[in-house]
């Protein structure tokens, strides 16, 4: 693409020399286009990031006052069972949600990749949950999971069984939140896969049909390899997204029971706004940043290597 344009521009250069020269000239005034964004970017993203680095080396109170303590906050974090647990919870949560989102999303996309009205309607149903805001989602699912009069509880009782208290069981709390999240977020992966499926060249399918390939063979050898990049994209997007789990845990379980469902972001929120220990909270935020960056980069490199081009 770039080489073609380069060739063409060389052609054009002869004819429109004067204008071309003006365009190539590096001007400070051109910076004006990017300036508004850069201003916000530097003041609201870059500066707080570096200020955060600095602040994490202090002991600071939410309402003012700070004292330099070096790496003490990070040492404290490593000894903090709640923090370590929160990291574990976050990773566990990603394990619970991302594969499910990718696989179910792919399955739905495969099943609904047709032009019938039923398919269009069903696609709409599966995407509709994604437009609801997180606090509505938690409200809905709390009355589904509630052991007293919740939807599932009533269902259990109708079958003569004891209702299960999902949100108060340490083993079930995070999976329950995961189910809520999958329900909420399934639309995006499904749509991304649908778009990718529609980009698969028909010739590939026709060739497979000519070879009398069955449904599964086609899926395995034609469809899946063609959407590999999208699969990687979905996984990266969802990992970064679910690393930031907050609302569901805050409103459904408050991180309990026994720290079983406290994600990293809730920890940061509680330490900052409830315990007023700002330096400590920001230090935890730096660690979150580091983890996300590592996860994103790792996936990027793995995806890069797999593409043997």
């Amino acid at each position, binding site marked *: *693409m770039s080489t073609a344009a380069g060739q*063409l521009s060389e052609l054009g250069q002869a004819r429109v020399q004067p*204008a071309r020269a003006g*365009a190539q000239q*590096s001007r*400070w005034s*051109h910076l004006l*286009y*990017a300036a508004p*964004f850069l201003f*916000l*970017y530097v003041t*609201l*993203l870059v*500066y*707080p*990031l570096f200020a*955060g680095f600095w*602040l994490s080396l202090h002991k600071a109170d939410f309402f003012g006052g700070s004292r330099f303590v070096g790496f003490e906050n990070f040492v404290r974090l490593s000894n903090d069972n709640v923090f370590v647990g929160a990291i574990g919870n976050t990773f566990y949560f990603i394990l619970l949600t991302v594969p499910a989102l990718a696989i179910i999303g792919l399955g739905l996309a495969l099943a*609904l990749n*047709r032009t019938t009205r*039923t398919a269009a309607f*069903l696609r*709409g*149903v*599966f*995407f*509709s949950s994604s*437009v*609801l*805001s997180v*606090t*509505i989602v938690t409200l*809905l*699912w709390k*009355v*589904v999971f509630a052991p007293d009069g919740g*939807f599932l509880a*009533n269902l259990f009782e109708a079958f003569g069984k004891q209702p299960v208290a999902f949100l108060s069981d340490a083993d079930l709390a995070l999976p329950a939140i995961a189910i809520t999240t999958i*329900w909420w977020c*399934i639309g995006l992966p499904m749509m*991304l896969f*649908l*778009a*990718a499926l*529609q*980009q698969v060249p028909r010739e590939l*399918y026709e060739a497979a049909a000519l070879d009398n390939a069955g449904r599964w063979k086609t899926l395995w050898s034609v469809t899946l390899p063609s959407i590999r990049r*999208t699969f990687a994209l979905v996984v990266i997007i969802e990992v970064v997204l679910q*690393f*930031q789990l*907050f*609302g569901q845990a805050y409103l459904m379980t408050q991180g309990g029971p026994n720290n079983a469902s406290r994600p990293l*972001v809730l920890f940061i*929120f509680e330490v*900052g706004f409830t315990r007023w220990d700002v330096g400590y909270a*920001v230090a935890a935020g730096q660690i*979150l*940043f580091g983890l996300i960056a590592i996860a*994103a980069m790792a996936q990027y490199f793995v995806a890069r290597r797999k593409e043997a081009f």
Partner: protein
Amino acid sequence: MTTRLASGAVGLGDRVILAATIALAIVMVLPMLWAVGLSMKSNAELLVDTNSVLKAPWTLRNYYDILIGSGVFRWLLNSIIVSVGMSLGVLALSSLAGYGFARLEFPGRNVIFVLVLFGLAIPEQAVILVRHQLFSDLNLHNTYAGLMLPGMSAPFGVFLMTQYFKAIPTEVDEAAMLDNASRFKIFWRVLLPMTLPAQATLGIFTFLHAWNDYWWPLVSGTNEQMYTLTVGIASTQMNFAESAGLGYLMAQAVFAGLPILIVYMFFQKYIVRAVSGAAT
């Protein structure tokens, strides 16, 4: 992609897949149906037994109570203002910056662009506490600007628009320059309209992100008049000494969710196209 049997009929496999998908769709809709059901029963009846959802009588009393007294309308308005405002702001800033990075030369352009890309990895939670302090010092809390600005500093939009502008052949620029159009005119009249699909994608993503945002509006829009929908609905959920009643809460949730669902239903085609556009 259906497999056609020799006879031309749709295979059994397809039927099973369809049935399974429909079953899954029903599971998807159940929580929403349950909430609607709860919203149509009196609080007193629900107090005794929530199974009463399945039995008459049903009532619209909760909806009436919301109409006369709930803050949900103000919350809805705030959410709309913030989401639309943030989306427009992001579109404007990202388009301008994208054009600048894609088409114009200025000192340090490439270095700056790479630095902007790095910003993609920064999660909001790593900067939110410092941002909060900054906004406190600047007196920006409890303003619409305070709720919109953080979202406009995210580099995703710039990245998207830069790629999109780069993909437009430079001949288009050159053709316009033959007419002696100024740089800005080329941007505004010629190139920008060509980026409509990207704009739609970016606009919708930003809108949904702003609509769903919880933590920042929670700590910045703390005045009840500035509650966005997420914060307002959340404020009804903590349940110590809460006296609003289950039916009322559910009606409020329905009220809060309905507008966006309706918008979604009408704009489904465009939303789908926009989201799919992100995959390519």
